[in-house]
């Protein structure tokens, strides 16, 4: 296996782990949402990488090209991007409401306040 051969997948996995780690380790809700977004974006990269065909052209029918890159994963990822944007904006909107209600966006402080509630 040559080094650059699966380079894209390494990047996807590294990004995935960074995102996942931030979601778990960060107490700040905004950072959590951004970690989640990085995690989702890494999957986009995974899909796009797998659709690449060596020497393939963009999938536009033309007599000069015989080899095309698979367009389907791109379409799937367009959908996933929409989902990602919706999730992120909903998450940020919830954080605004949480800040109004609790006066903080730090998880520890929120948990402390909740512990006192009946």
């Amino acid at each position, binding site marked *: 296996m040559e080094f650059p051969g699966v380079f894209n997948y390494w990047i996807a996995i590294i990004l995935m782990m960074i995102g*996942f780690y931030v*979601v778990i380790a960060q107490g700040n*809700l905004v950072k*959590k949402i951004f970690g*989640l977004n990085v*995690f*989702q974006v890494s*999957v986009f990269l*995974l*899909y796009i990488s*797998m659709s690449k065909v060596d020497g393939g052209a963009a999938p536009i029918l033309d007599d000069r090209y015989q080899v095309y890159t698979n367009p389907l*994963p791109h379409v*799937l990822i367009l*959908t*996933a991007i929409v*989902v990602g944007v*919706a*999730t992120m904006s*909903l*998450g940020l909107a*919830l*954080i605004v*409401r*949480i800040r109004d*209600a*609790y006066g903080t966006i730090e998880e520890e402080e*929120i948990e402390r306040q*909740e512990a006192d*509630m*009946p």
Partner: protein
Amino acid sequence: MISSHLPVLQIVIPLMAAPVCLILRHAVAAWLLATAVTVVTFLISLSLLGQVLQDGTITYDLGNWPPPWGIEYVIDRLSAFILVIVAGMGTLVMPFARQSVEQEVPEERIYLFYVMYLLCLTGLLGIAITGDAFNLFVFLEISSLSSYVLISLGRDKRALTGAFNYLIMGTIGATFYVIGVGALYMMTGTLNMADLAARLPAILHLKVIEAALAFLLVGISLKLALFPLHFWLPNAYAFAPTTVTIFLAATATKVSVYVMIRILYTVFGGQALFESFAIDEALVALGMLSMVAAALVAIFQDNVKRLLAYSSLSQIGYMILGIGLGNAAGLAGGIIHIFNHAMAKAALFMAIGCVITRVGAVTVSDLAGLGRQMPVTMAALLIGALSLIGIPTTVGFVTKWYLIEGAFENGNWPAVATILISGILAIIYSWRIIEAAYFQDPPEGRGEVREAPIAMQAPMLLLAAACIVFGVSATWTMDIALSAAEALIGAPAAAPIETSGVQP
């Protein structure tokens, strides 16, 4: 012919009604539209179930693109049954919703509530109807995103953090699912479930497929709140508006259980998979763990909604146990429990909703003396609780009967014992509610308490009655569940016989 387009209408009607609700901007009009649409989807789902029972599996090519290129809707017995459960629960929740939502959601946000409800319904129905692995993810996210919003509409500010935690966990789960689907696509070049099922057996031993399966299972387990991935659920259920709790408890996690069955049995071929990986044993173990652990936690809850949420987790364990047992009786027990538990839990949460309407809060001590003040509501609560325990003549008993039969068939004694122990734990946590309602005096200072309005009581009583009716005469539902289970288990076993017929 309109009837040949019923599968797509099932999804498109609620999907299109959602933006219409948004334009209406009026609470009562939005409620009327949502109710009408839900009833229509219920009628469509019944008609689809009738067709499936009579003529077998229905397939529908979306936009007339033939599969595997286009998205295909596939309705077999199991998905038709799930469609009926989801749309049926929606239909029963709607009459209840109007007053309950008016009370718990600010006036100016009520129409938004129904927009989100319709989207959530669309997503849940879509998950059950689609035969495409990626399309399933899209519907999963439609239902999840709308349920995050629905939960955050609760009065208590903890609804916001509950919704936020659910958003984080739900998104991780859905993303895991997409990674799994991506790996499957990478290896097979298809997203169509039937196509995947045909191509996977040959490459089942590959590391990529193993990794895909792991991602899919963990992702779905997060969504269905399988112990120990359940932490988002109790707060989300406890602090959401009551209508949302009823609807989600009766449908959302159940649909995820359906996805689990679909992936394991249809896509990966069930028994063939279990022979090479001991996933069935892992599921049985996790199911048993959830049945006992969640029931133990439920015993110590003071907030009745939280108590019932933990009880839901315990009941999800029964379904997972049924899936893991892997024989027809066990799997049928798991499938029928989706239906049985939806009814019992919806009846219970509706009873709690009636109490919230009249008393305001629902800790166990708030229920004191209500057995005399709200006799009808408490009777429904009692029937729901008996059904959770699994007393004969209630639906819970039917489930346990088949699960125990399935466990016996595998010679799995620990599972039999766990079912019985979990039943005893259910008696303990249910008894706390019953005892407060019937054997304690009302607290000082609480005035006259009347029964909740008839619109809230009617669906609750209907569900409580259904718990008894389908518990006494389970033939109809059991036939569907058993034939669905046999179809799921039988299909992969029949395939090799066909190929051997072709090859000399």
